């Protein structure tokens, strides 16, 4: 079971990763990953505020942070594992939440229109559709290839 310090660290990593992914996705034009797809500029400001807020909360408002790992503090390996868990949870939350929020847009954008260039591969596809739709299309493609 996580102690208070560890849960606060996990929440800090989760929130700041959420902000970092939103900020970067907005800058890179990965609209399918945004929670506020129509407002990429506002997303960058909100994401930066989320990161700043998470830092201020963790380091200045939620208790002393210079604590030894013989007490409540986190030992290096635990810190790395908790970072991995918090960051993975934030990326997964981004993929799921953005796919739900942009559900209708993803369907319209995914349809290949004649005359349009072929959809980009990899993360680039998320400039045209949501992660869930792109992932599902890939799985369907693999199933078809398998038959």
């Amino acid at each position, binding site marked *: 079971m996580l102690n208070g310090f560890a849960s606060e660290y996990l929440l800090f990593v989760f929130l700041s990763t959420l902000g*970092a992914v939103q900020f970067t996705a907005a800058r890179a034009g990965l609209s399918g990953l945004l929670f506020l797809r129509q407002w990429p500029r506002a997303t960058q400001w909100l994401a930066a505020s989320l990161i700043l807020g998470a830092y201020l909360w963790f*380091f200045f408002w939620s208790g002393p*942070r*210079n604590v030894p790992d013989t007490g409540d503090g986190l030992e290096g390996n635990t810190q790395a594992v908790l970072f991995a868990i918090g960051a993975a949870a934030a990326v997964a939350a981004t993929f799921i939440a953005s796919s739900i929020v942009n559900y209708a847009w993803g369907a319209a954008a995914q349809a290949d229109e004649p005359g349009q260039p072929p959809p980009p591969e*990899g*993360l680039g596809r998320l400039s045209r559709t949501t992660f869930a739709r792109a992932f599902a299309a890939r799985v369907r493609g693999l199933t078809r290839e398998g038959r």
Partner: protein
Amino acid sequence: MDARIVEWLNAGVGKFAPWDAFMEAVMSDYLAPVTGSLVLLALWFYGAGEQERYRNQLVTVMGAMSVGFANLGVSLVNNHYFRLRPFDVLDVQPLFYQPTDSSFPANTASVGFAIATAVFLRHRKLGGALYALAFLCSFGRVYAAVHYPTDIVAGAAIGGAAVLLSWTLVRVLGFIPRIVLGAARSFHLT
């Protein structure tokens, strides 16, 4: 010389509370590693096109490998050499909790400088900002008499060597990240 620098810097502790509070935040065990890791993670998603994103993702992979190698390097040195912390042997004012492990080399410096160097190879400004953070964190630790300056220099050197090793491995065994990233790309993860 090492001890004199620590004593000279530490003489400033307690003279200006806001500065001490700032130093306590920047030298924390969490600020530099989390910030560096967030930058590495953000680079995974960043890039104008597929090629640029792939190169950024290689930086993420190299940065993560470098952190692992830096920690390994510090552990190897720690197994053969133990140095007492400045606060153990000098008459100084504490500003930080008192770690019990070896002072030499500085682990936070090795991780901070490893991430900064990996990012700097591709993004000069971003890498420069991470260097500044690693430097501030290291300065804070000397100011608080947690490390000697030579601990920091050794830590930074280990961090640099870790990046060199990762960079060499990525170049020599470049087909492995290409295969892994290529497989992840087909599921829109890279």
